[in-house]
């Protein structure tokens, strides 16, 4: 059987992490192809339920990435997101969903290398914990 290739949804903020991911590509830095990127304007736009919805619809992990604290384009979106996802991670852990399935990172537009590292770490971790199938929406 071939190795498990996780499905990871990455929500990247428009101003920092999305540009950072772009830089990763233009710098020709390799990173695992398991992430599916969704661009959001700000991590503060992230409804915590997006995470559950993604996991339910077949994602094995979710990565949320935004600007470093103090650098948010909208001043405080990432601070609010930080609180939200800290709690969401704890709640998911409480009901038995491995908190490693929800990761958050700060990646600026200049940190192409860091983005590659983050994606590698997240992918490796999720490979270790295996696929998420226990509460996936019933495949029709």
């Amino acid at each position, binding site marked *: 059987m071939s190795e498990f290739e996780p499905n990871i949804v990455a929500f990247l903020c428009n101003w920092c992490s999305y540009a950072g991911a772009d830089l990763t590509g233009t710098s020709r830095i390799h990173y695992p192809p398991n992430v599916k990127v969704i661009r959001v304007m700000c991590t503060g736009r992230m409804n915590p339920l997006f995470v559950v919805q993604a996991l339910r619809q077949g994602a094995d992990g979710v990565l949320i990435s935004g600007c470093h604290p103090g650098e948010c384009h909208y001043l405080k979106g990432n601070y609010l997101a*930080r609180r939200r996802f800290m709690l969401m991670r704890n*709640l998911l852990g409480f009901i*038995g969903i491995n908190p490693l399935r929800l*990761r*958050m990172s700060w990646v600026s537009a200049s940190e192409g290398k860091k983005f590659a590292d983050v994606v590698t770490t997240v992918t490796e971790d999720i490979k270790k914990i295996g696929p998420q199938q226990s509460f996936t929406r019933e495949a029709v």
Partner: protein
Amino acid sequence: MNIQKIRDEASRALGRKDVKYLIGYQKGSYGFRVSPAFFQTKEEVERLIFSPLCQVSLAPYLTLEEVVPLPGEEKQKASKVALLARGCDSRAINQILAEKGIPRDRLFIIGIPCEGVIDRRKIEARFPSVTEPAEVREENGKYIIAIGDQSHEVPKEELLADACKVCRYPNPLIYDKLTGDKVAPHQANYDDITSWEEKPLEERLQFWLDQFSRCIRCYACRNACPLCYSTVCILDRLDPQWVKRSNDTSENLMFHVSRAFHLAGRCVSCGECERACPMGIPLMKLNRKLEKDVNDLFSYEAGKDAESKSPMTTFHVEDREDFIL
């Protein structure tokens, strides 16, 4: 608890020109039941009761669709709703006020320090199939239960509702009139939460999936919750439809995570959701986990006053971020 004092306050409140009606309790239709009741006149206050059986929270009635303008003839124009509020109810009211859900001047709050209430499931398990009206009073750490002409004594701890066992705010925090003497609060105790978190992930997940699979999605937990008062709940939305109508474990998990998370930093631990659940799902466990975390991480407790901002709409630059890559 002196019922006469509460009745006096109630009839004084109803005597006020600006009070439309009063939400209180009256004897229920059978057995250990207590029913929420809406009192329009002073005379009706004779029916008002308050006893350890008064488990139902009255706070949800403040935000129901028509904000209860019962046909009260000449009183129709009056603006205030009076209600009895125990510690937990007062916290719920505070939280609603803080969220600007209802204006303070629409409320006349009669605060009742609360010694804790009886879990109806526990007492009905102890005395099954009781149809004749039963009464309970508390005496020296015991409940004296009168069913018909029989009397029983049960230690308080055995019947006390779980939420009341760890209630830190038995005394109303916001009120216009306070009746009775203050009650000593209980200690916060999150042992159940911490010990649960020591269990293996797989065991936790199996437990919750099993619990959620039982849910029939009657939404009683939502409707009974004093803080679930959104005009359009995401659960009723068709477009976008976050949670499908189908009853399966995955949809149910989504529903329960949304419900719990929407109450993060807002839940006042009244235990109404769990009480209302016809399927016996331990919903308070989720709420208490979030309550504990909000307290630990953001030093915030819901409903302590009517001004403070929700922890989910504020932040500290120095909030923990050890989970961030």
